[in-house]
């Protein structure tokens, strides 16, 4: 078994790590970099709690091998707030009561960020599509839609 040296750019920081080829980005983020905000919920790309942004687009970190990131820029939930100042989407989630258990929240907020970065004034339909990769079992999604609308304003 041979480890490979890879370069990862996560939240603007550069890391040099050696990984086995079968390690997923999710595992590397959580175990090597201690970025526990990225969650593991099903490990097969269905639930979306492991969502991170790769070059600004939401991807499943549980389906992406770390060796396959190949220089892409990763953003995790830890990269959103700066020096304790919450990102407007994070504020909107709190204000609109879009957070219950919180387990889907990091992935949901990152999907919302990708959506709003590409489309600052999405329709409700576009919000639903943009968030469709993230399951939430607590809120029924409605307050999450409102939070994203709120953050867009």
């Amino acid at each position: 078994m041979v480890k490979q040296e890879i370069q990862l750019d996560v939240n603007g920081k550069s890391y040099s790590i050696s990984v086995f080829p079968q390690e997923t980005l999710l595992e590397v983020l959580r175990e090597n970099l201690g970025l526990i905000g990225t969650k593991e919920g099903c490990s097969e790309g269905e639930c979306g709690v492991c969502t991170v942004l790769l070059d600004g687009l939401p991807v499943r970190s549980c389906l992406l091998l770390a060796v396959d990131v190949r220089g892409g820029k990763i953003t995790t939930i830890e990269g959103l707030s700066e020096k304790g100042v919450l990102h407007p989407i994070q504020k909107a989630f709190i204000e609109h009561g879009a957070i219950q258990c919180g387990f889907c929240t990091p992935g949901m907020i990152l999907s919302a960020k990708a959506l709003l970065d590409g489309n600052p004034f999405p329709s409700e339909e576009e919000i639903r599509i943009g968030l469709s990769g993230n399951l939430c079992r607590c809120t029924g999604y409605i307050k999450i839609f409102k939070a994203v609308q709120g953050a867009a304003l």
Partner: protein
Amino acid sequence: MRYFEYFEPKSVGEACQFLNEHEEAKILGGGVSLVVLLKNGLITPSHLVNIKTIPGLARIEWDDREGLTIGGLNHHRDILLSPLIQRHCPILAEAASKIATPPIRNLGTIGGNVAHAEPSADFPPALIALNASLMLTSPGRERKVPIEEFFTDYYENILGQGEILTRIDVPPLPPRSAGTYIKLDKITNSIAIVGVASVIGFDEKGICIYAGVGLGGVASTPLNVKGAKDILVGEKITETHIDKIAKEAQAMANPITNVHASAEYRKEMVYVLTRRALQGSLDKALGR
């Protein structure tokens, strides 16, 4: 996940060569299906060959004579957003929009979607209706095959040792044409219980000059309803024609029962969805 070695080829030739030499190697494209199979232990390759490191395998191009060329490594998202596809083959964007969710569409590739040979996949019915061909590349050889000949059984295809699906070619459609992809799913964009794609083209007199219908989820492979062409081309399309094709599609279907639906239900839905898909294309083509 079982241990495997990882290889990054620099060219198609190198990739083919490597695959030829390593019988147990698998191609890593988008990985959205592959990694799940690896995790479940359903496949245990010796090597993964990451073809995303090969330049030129992701490109969407249009040629008035040859039609559309899509690289095997184009992501579902590329297909969804490409202006060329919107203009020339919007049914492919429609199919892409119905594949899973954005994080999957951002990683998954059209080549992988096709090569995985999942009978319920969303691109194959649309590609069948478009009369698309696949370019299969192996060391020193390329062959172009009609898409419906590519699939042989559940998750089985004709790719040989060392062969890679590098490109998808879609011939140009008549100027007055339209396509529709409809899928029946349990929740929005979950796996197709039945998926039906239809493409119809007309001359200026409203006579059908092109017809294609592809089915997903109803047999061990995606199906081409070949009769659609015989029934429609040269005709002014009526309800009777549509019904006839839908019945033929239904007769071809040989679905299985699983947790998502029974075989009987699927068989019945092939008829309903084929009618709707044809009617949808007809309405679009005639500007209704």
